[in-house]
């Protein structure tokens, strides 16, 4: 990893990052406006409700437990994928990425149908952990592939055991990736509604949905959403603090990268279990349940293939648009965060992440508010919806772009500058080309998440346009599970494509043949 520059960031980059940040902050401004109209009395009255402390406690408990679980499963999985001698490695990688394709509401529905007594904290923790493990596994595996075991070897020669060697040598290399993945998982859990609501676990998002639902008082909902934003701010700042220390401790890789593959031996069976069981539980159970329901359904409402194809086309196009917007917004912020330090940079990065902590309905309404005010001609067009996806999921792209850019040595950029290329041209010729796999991975991650998005889509889509997620929802809403099954399966298949591509993404840099180890 290259050291960050001490210099001030160039003005153009800073301006671009601030604009991107301002656009990403639209939901936050909306919340501020709504809370402002609510008045201080109402705000205090909300805290007086007996349920609010319970909601906050539940939300924090769920987020913390899911994050710890995914790290506990994801890091060993990533280690097995990247550093262990494994047969059929590519297939295991695909399997590890597959839960990304499963929407949390679909996984929850599948599990609830299979085990009707599932409810409360344990059920929500279980399902959310299953579907978010890839957020940790994928970046950590990429970091392991790009790293080196040289330092581990040094630690071993000094007499440390294998676990201590891992802690001293490898862990500092992968710690930023672990933190980035954990951050995404934590924010996702804070903002998730569908998966948690089905298990009747009361958290802030279910209360927000209820508040928009029956209160007809958007101010109460906005106050609750602001609480969620505060939690998200705390989490993002904590991650930055932890990551900051990691970067200081670990200056850079010395010497050529070398990797020694680990023989599994008697650990083969547990290793297979760690790699196989979570994705299987996340993917196989919901799909099986849906197919079973398909055969149980007495009245298969008329199935129109053209509807399915249209919805599929819309899903792909809109999520691709969302990925483009997200990457465009995240690029200046990611580059800024990778190359420069300082309070302003941290503030920009923090603001960029916050929208991920908000439930989709809040982001959707904020964009209704904003687009009607600023660009009414574009209201309820595909552009605003793609933009909404971009704003919602830009944080997922920031981490990937930041990591990919940080791995490009600044010395290469310096050489390009001395040859007379301007900053932009240097970036295009040198940095972007080398960071391309990471940027592509970021775009794919946004695309796969946008395909599953529901609440903001319902609010912002052009009237009459359906995605696979909205079609699935409109059928399960009236118990037409038989009719819903084709859409659910198609959604899983379509979203599995970017997940598959993500599993094959390589971060580049020195993977030596095990024979030389």
């Amino acid at each position, binding site marked *: 990893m290259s050291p960050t520059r001490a210099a*001030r*960031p160039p*003005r153009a980059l*800073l*301006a671009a990052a*601030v*604009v991107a940040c*301002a656009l990403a*902050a*639209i939901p936050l401004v909306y919340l501020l*406006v709504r809370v402002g109209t609510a008045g201080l009395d109402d705000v205090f009255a909300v805290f007086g*409700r*007996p*349920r609010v402390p319970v909601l906050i406690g539940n939300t924090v408990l769920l987020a913390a437990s899911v994050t710890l679980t995914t790290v506990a499963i994801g890091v060993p999985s990533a280690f097995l994928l990247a550093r262990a001698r494994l047969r059929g490695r590519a297939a295991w990688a695909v399997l590890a990425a597959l839960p990304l394709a499963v929407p949390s509401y679909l996984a929850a529905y599948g599990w*609830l149908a299979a085990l*009707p*007594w599932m409810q409360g904290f344990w059920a929500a923790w279980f399902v959310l952990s299953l579907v978010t493990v890839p957020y940790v596994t994928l970046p950590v595996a990429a970091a392991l592939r790009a790293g080196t075991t040289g330092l581990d070897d040094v630690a071993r020669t000094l007499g440390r055991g294998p676990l201590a060697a891992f802690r001293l040598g490898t862990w500092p290399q992968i710690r930023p990736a672990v933190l980035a993945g954990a951050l995404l998982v934590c924010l996702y859990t804070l903002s998730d509604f569908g998966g948690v*609501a*089905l298990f*009747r676990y*009361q958290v802030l998002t*279910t209360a927000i*949905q*209820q508040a*928009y*639902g*029956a*209160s*007809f*008082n*958007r101010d109460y909902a906005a106050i609750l959403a602001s609480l969620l934003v505060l939690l998200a701010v705390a989490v993002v700042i904590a991650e930055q603090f932890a990551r900051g220390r990691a970067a200081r401790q670990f200056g850079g890789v010395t010497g050529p990268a070398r990797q020694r593959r680990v023989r599994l031996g008697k650990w083969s069976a547990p290793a297979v279990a760690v790699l196989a069981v979570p994705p299987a539980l996340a993917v196989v159970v919901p799909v099986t349940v849906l197919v079973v329901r398909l055969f*149980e*359904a*007495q*009245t298969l*409402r008329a199935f129109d293939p053209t509807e399915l194809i249209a919805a599929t086309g819309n899903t792909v196009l809109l999520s691709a648009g969302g990925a483009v917007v997200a990457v465009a917004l995240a690029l200046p912020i990611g580059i800024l965060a990778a190359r420069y330090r300082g309070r302003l940079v941290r503030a920009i990065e923090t603001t960029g992440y916050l929208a991920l902590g908000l439930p989709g*309905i809040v982001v959707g*309404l904020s964009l*209704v*508010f*904003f687009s*009607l*005010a*600023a660009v*009414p001609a574009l*209201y*309820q067009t595909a552009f605003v919806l793609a933009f909404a996806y971009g704003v919602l999921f830009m944080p997922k792209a920031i981490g990937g772009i930041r990591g990919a850019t940080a791995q490009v040595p600044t010395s290469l950029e310096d050489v390009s500058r001395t040859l007379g290329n301007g900053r932009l041209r240097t970036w295009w010729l040198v940095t972007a080309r080398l960071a391309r796999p990471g940027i592509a991975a970021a775009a794919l991650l946004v695309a796969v998440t946008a395909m599953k998005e529901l*609440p903001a889509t*319902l*609010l912002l889509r052009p*009237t*009459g346009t359906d995605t696979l997620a*909205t079609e699935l929802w*409109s*059928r399960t*809403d*009236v*118990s*037409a599970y*038989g009719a819903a099954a084709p859409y659910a399966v198609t959604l899983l298949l379509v979203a599995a494509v970017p997940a598959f591509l993500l599993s094959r993404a390589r971060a580049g840099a020195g993977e030596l043949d095990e024979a030389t180890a």
Partner: protein
Amino acid sequence: MRSSRVIALSAGLAAALTLAACTANPEAAESTSTAGDGSLTVYAGRSESLIGPLLEQFTEDTGIEVDVRYATSPELNALLLEEGERTPAEVFLSQDAGALGSIANAGLVSPIPAELAGLIPAGFTSDDDSWIGVTGRARVIAYDGEHLTTETVPDTVDALTAPEWSGRVAFAPGNASFQSFITALRVLEGEEAAAEWVDGIAANAPILTENNLATLDLVNSGQADVGLINHYYWFERAAEVGEQNMRAQLEFLPGDPGGIVNVSGAAIMKGAAGDPDALAFIEYLVSEDAQRYFVEETFEYPLLPGIDAPDGLPALDSLVNPELDLADLESLEQTQQLLADAGLL
């Protein structure tokens, strides 16, 4: 310092944009001319699979194209409030009266003409013609058919606060129909009795759900013994899995506040005042054809006098509580405060 000037400029631009957004005067939505333009934009808080065929039939009969936006009624209510007068919607078809009342309260609707509004009996439609009722949905108790029979199930909700029902009752406190029921309880039995019931049920280890469908699923899978839902969800589910496979059974509650009838309805948005397409749509919804469609396809009560209720359901008059204004929002807010104080909301 130069970089800070740039930052200040960009931040100022962003702030200016958002300030402009906040203070912008809402422009009135383009109103259609008095001659209909042959197309109608409807925001429908009902499921596409249920009313889609009805809307297609409307287009066939009248030649008016319908652009429908489907979402839940609460989401559409939030959306319409957010859009204000700039909404592209011309008609709002809502699953519950509270949402209609909320939109009317915000001054976003235009009154239904008296000759249409008069078709629906009082008590099932708005007091002031701001919206019109289309179908009726009765509150019922769904009970686990394997453990309970129609004799052992109470026929009044008051009984559910007794200790024997602890941990066995499921309902959705955020659901508009449930809240209408609480409002009915307050009107019919008085504030104190209603508060007692709410506190009683909250202390009785209730199973809280997100919506009526989730409640029915719990009863149907044996996770709850008794659930408070709207009647037609049972029929929807029965149509999917077969009546003989339904574990849950229904108990109607004639004369009890727990058995009140809520209505779904429609309103014409302000921007479509006088639009003949919108009026034609409203007229169609309360016509015999459409009312029969609701009876046969969604198993809801028709509100047009003279149409028979679905088979097997008690007559509408036996369930009615006419002193209730279903869209009284002030009352709804008090109900929500009551539920919040009991820790349910």
